[in-house]
Every structure is written in C-alpha cells, then in structure tokens.
C-alpha cells in the first residue's frame, strides 16, 4: 500500500473538504468532500456513573439547522486514520485508503470539543472538551462505532492533550495554569500536577519519558520533570507563545516550532542537558498576516497560511528548510488550491482551537473583595468612634 506519510493533511476551509497534499509529487494530491450526510450514531456516551442526570442523558442530536464546520482535526501516527470534530458535536472517523478516504463512523459527543488526539498505537482517540472532560473513543476495526466513554476531567477548559511516548501517561493542560499527568489506562489515578505557569497553558509536549515542555499565556516556556512535578527550567519570551510542534532528532535534541499570538512562527533548536536543563537557539522566524497552522511530515515542518492576492484569499504552504543552523521559510508552490483543483463556495480559513483573548483571566469584574474590606473598615472605625463618644 502506498504510504500516506507523503501527504500533508489539512482542511482549506474547515467546512467542505479535507486536502491531501503530496509533498513529493504535487500531481498526486487530492481532496475529499466531507460527508455531512453520514448518519450520526446517537448512542449516549458512557459516563462515570449512570445516575440520572438531565445533561448527561439529554437526547444528543446533530443539529440540522446550523451551518456545519470543523473544529479539530487529528491524524494517527501511521497516517491511515483521520478524525475530526464538527460544531454539531459529532466526531468523524475516516480511513485513508488508496487515493480515497472512507468515513467509518460519526459518533456524538456532549460539549464543544477543544482537542482530539490519537493514542500512540492509533487504536483509540481522546476527545477533550471546553468544560474540561476527556472522553475515550475506540478506533480499532471492531469498535470504531462504539460510543465514547468518560475517562477523567478538569474543572477548567482543557487546551491541549498529549500521550506520553511510552503510553503510560496522558498530559493535559488547562486554562487554570495547570498541567496534569494522568495514568493510562488507570485514568482515575493522577500521577502529578506540574504547577508554575501564571496564565493558561496552551500547548505541551513530552521530550522523553521523564520530561515535558509547556508554553503559556504568561509568555514562558517551561521544562518539567513529569513524575516529580518539579520545574527544571524556564524562559520568558518577548511574545505570547500559543501552539507548539516538536520534532526530536535524538533523545536530547530536536526542533521546536512555536506559533505566537501575533501570527508569527519561531523555529528553535533545543538541547536537553542532563535531563534537567534546556538550551534554546533561535534558528529563524517569520511574521504572517493572519492565523497559521503548523504540521510535521517526515521530520520537516510546514506552515499553512492564508494570504489575500488581488482580493482573493489563497492558501499557501511554506516548508521550513534548516541548514547550517538557519531556518528558511520556502513556499512550496505558488497557490495550493489550484494544485488541489479546489472548488468550493465556502471561503478558505484556518480555525484555531481556542480564542486566546478569552483565555486570559479577567478577574476585575468579580472583585468584590476590596469593596467588602473597605466597608468593613468603615464599620469598625464607626464603632470605635461611637465608643469614644460614650
């Protein structure tokens, strides 16, 4: 079978099509149409307990009246399964076959998804939602249409989820500055929390079986020992890092690609020293005009971006070429949509998994503390005055 590792998979419009762009031979590229008519399996998700609960038991139905669009996309490691969630709260699972893609299942879920990720073996998929719950969906041949199962939850929006290299842990990060290390498959056991960030933790990744790195709205990148929760290293950037992609070259060296809140891409070489410190070296950067999407294929980084040319929005893909410790951004082809024969009524766009501006904590609104203390002070002074008078 042909290896689909040669293809960059993305959605140019997050609505009608998934594109498979062959980097080696662009002529072999193709697109598939998302099958919005595929029937939804409305079987309820398995919760922790089947106690009567209106919300958990509410009839889940895909809404017909809303304009459908995709929220998250994930591809398994061997690039033969692709999953995506849509705003009608259904999870598509598709099998990539010879120049075609077959929809296997469309299962429902409860609340807006924030992240989906395949397990390392590709036999299951984790779906994290905006209220902090994580569900497990089987994706193997026998269970690809089985209802999802609740596995654990945060009391905050989950922003990223990754599986450890040895598959023993699930790492989740949330809006409340937390990184949680959960045992797998004993999801009820929390191994550790890595705490130190001062704003939402938007992205994380394991470097090896004992360390993870994370980036946050506090402008920092931190290195953690995932078993002790100890922070081993941190660096403060002059920008707000949002998403992180990582490609290891050896067990202690590799490339990090970071997108920022102001649409730029930074490429770093990192070196993990004695498993307790990190050395970062900036190899290159590029400023884009709007949202970008990062992908890794065969050890190379690709940046999907949208630019307006003569009033028409077009999709471009840059390949990051690293030579002599310098990262260069080279456009793959002038216009990707022409290669793909893309015709659609919907406009091209990149959907971000979350709106960064909403993640910073706006606590001012709820500051009833100062008011209360001021009133109390006045009361006590008043009493003291009265006493004096007496």
């Amino acid at each position: 079978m042909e290896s689909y590792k040669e293809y960059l998979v993305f959605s140019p419009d997050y609505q009608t099509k998934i594109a498979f762009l062959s980097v080696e031979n662009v002529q072999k590229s193709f697109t598939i149409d998302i099958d919005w008519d595929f029937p939804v399996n409305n079987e309820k998700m398995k919760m922790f307990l089947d106690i009567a609960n209106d919300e958990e038991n509410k009839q889940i139905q895909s809404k017909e009246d809303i304009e459908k669009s995709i929220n998250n996309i994930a591809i398994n490691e061997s690039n033969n399964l692709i999953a995506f969630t849509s705003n009608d709260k259904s999870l598509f699972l598709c099998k990539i076959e010879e120049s075609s893609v077959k929809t296997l299942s469309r299962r429902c879920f409860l609340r807006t998804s924030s992240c989906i990720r395949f397990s390392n073996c590709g036999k299951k998929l984790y779906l994290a939602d905006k209220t902090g719950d994580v569900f497990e969906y089987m994706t193997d041949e026998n269970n690809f249409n089985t209802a999802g199962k609740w596995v654990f939850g945060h009391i905050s929006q989950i922003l990223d989820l990754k599986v450890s290299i040895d598959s023993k842990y699930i790492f989740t990060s949330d809006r409340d500055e937390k990184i949680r290390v959960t045992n797998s498959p004993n999801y009820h056991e929390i191994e550790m929390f890595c705490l130190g960030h001062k704003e939402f933790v938007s992205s994380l990744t394991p470097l090896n079986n004992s360390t993870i790195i994370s980036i946050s709205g506090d402008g920092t990148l931190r290195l953690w020992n995932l078993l002790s929760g100890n922070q081993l290293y941190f660096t403060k950037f002059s920008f707000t890092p949002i998403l992180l992609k990582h490609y290891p070259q050896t067990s202690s060296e590799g490339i990090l690609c970071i997108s920022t809140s102001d649409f730029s891409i930074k490429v770093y070489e990192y070196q993990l020293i004695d498993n307790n410190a990190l050395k970062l070296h900036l190899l290159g950067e590029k400023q884009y005009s709007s949202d970008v999407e990062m992908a890794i294929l065969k050890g190379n980084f690709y940046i999907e971006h949208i630019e307006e040319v003569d009033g028409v929005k077009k999709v471009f893909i840059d390949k990051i070429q690293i030579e002599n410790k310098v990262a260069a951004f080279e456009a793959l082809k002038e216009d990707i949509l022409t290669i793909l024969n893309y015709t659609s009524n919907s406009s091209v766009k990149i959907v971000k998994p979350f709106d960064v501006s909403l993640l910073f904590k706006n606590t001012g609104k709820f500051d009833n503390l100062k008011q209360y203390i001021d009133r109390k002070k006045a009361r006590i002074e008043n009493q003291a005055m009265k006493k004096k008078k007496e």
Partner: protein
Amino acid sequence: MEAPEIRLPQKRFYRQRAHSNPISDHSIEYPINPDELDQDIGTNHPSWKELYPEIGDKKVEFGDFGCGYGGFLISLSETYPDKISIGMEIRVKVSDYVKDRIETLRIIHPGKYQNVACLRSNSMKYMVNYFHKAQLSKMFFLFPDPHFKKSKHKWRIINPSLLSEYAYVLKKEGLLYVVTDVQDLYDWMVSHLSAHPSFERLKDDEEKSDILHDKLLNSSEEAQKVERNQGSKFLAIFKRL
C-alpha cells in the same frame, strides 16, 4: 467587673447567600503551587507560617472544604491539638468571619487555636495549588451546596473528576468525610465515592466509632440549623486505598 475588651465577631455582619458559582473566575489570590506556601512569607498569598505562626516543621494535615462559619474547624482544633487544620471557604464575608473568629479566640485563649486557620479560596479549582500529593490525612465536606438543579450537578464538590484530585492530595489510608441533610445529595456522593477505585467506605461500626462522629453531626453552624429544624443528617466516611 469590667466588660471584656475583646469580643468574638458577630455573625450578623458577615452574612452571605449560601450559593456560589465554583466555575467562574472569582478574584481569588491563590498560590502558584504548594511550595510557595512553605516559604516564610508568601508572595501573593499568606504562607503557612503566616497563617500558623507556631507551625514549626508541621504540615497541614486536615482540610475542611467549604468550612462555612467554622464551627467544626474550631472543634477540630480542640480534638486534635497536635494536628494542623485548614478551613477553606469561597464566600468572602463568611471566610472573613472565620478568620476574625480564630484571631479573637487566639487572643482570648493564649496558646490555643494556633493549629487552625481559614483561607478564602475555591477548593474545587485550586485544591492542588495548596497541597502536595499525599499531604492530607483527613478531608471534610460538611453540608456542601446541594446544587439541586440537575444541570448544575457538575458544580457539586463531590464529583468524579474531583474525586481523583482528592485521592491525589490524600495519603493512603487517609479519610474523606461527607455529611449532608439532603438525601438526594447523600445518595449521589455515596454512589460516586463507592464507584471510584481509590475509595472504600468504612464499615458501619467503624464510622460510628470515629472520634469525630458526633462532632461532624453537631458542631457546625449548618448542623445546628438542621438540628433546630429537626431535619435528618447523613454521614459517610471513605478511606483512600
């Protein structure tokens, strides 16, 4: 005889409605992680040493989450003079009442009540910011907000997500206590705790012989209110496996 100068705080100045949204961003200053509380002086938040000037090398071991007006917390101080207990309460005025109450008690009874303190915080969100893994040996959830509406069951302080966090901060063999006067909530809490692989309910006679059994049912303000209304009270104790 002269009237005493120092009086316990009066509750009428601290009344606040019983419900609070545990999910929203309150203006709570919480520590970044438990290490921060072990420093001599806290950065944006009082350290353990500031809360318990005589704490020495001891660690907080008991936690009363949603401690209300602090009645049970105060009785914990008396029952376990060698253990450090913390009360957490999300309501600004109520937590301030408990702080003032402890401060006054410490003045009236020199040397006593040095082992209890109260924090205003949201334990549902920030539990693990305060306590290391396996730090606590007892956790109390007394008369928690029942959040009757089914859509708000997620806000209940005993729920499957949070039970894993409670298991994380509790030592092995540590105990988790729940008391309520609401039968529905009791059934909910017991079924969730029983279904969680990290917890096991104590036997009936073990629960009854717990030294705190009667105090759990009677010492908090909420418990006394239920008593006055002749309502029933339900208790369960679970062990961390």
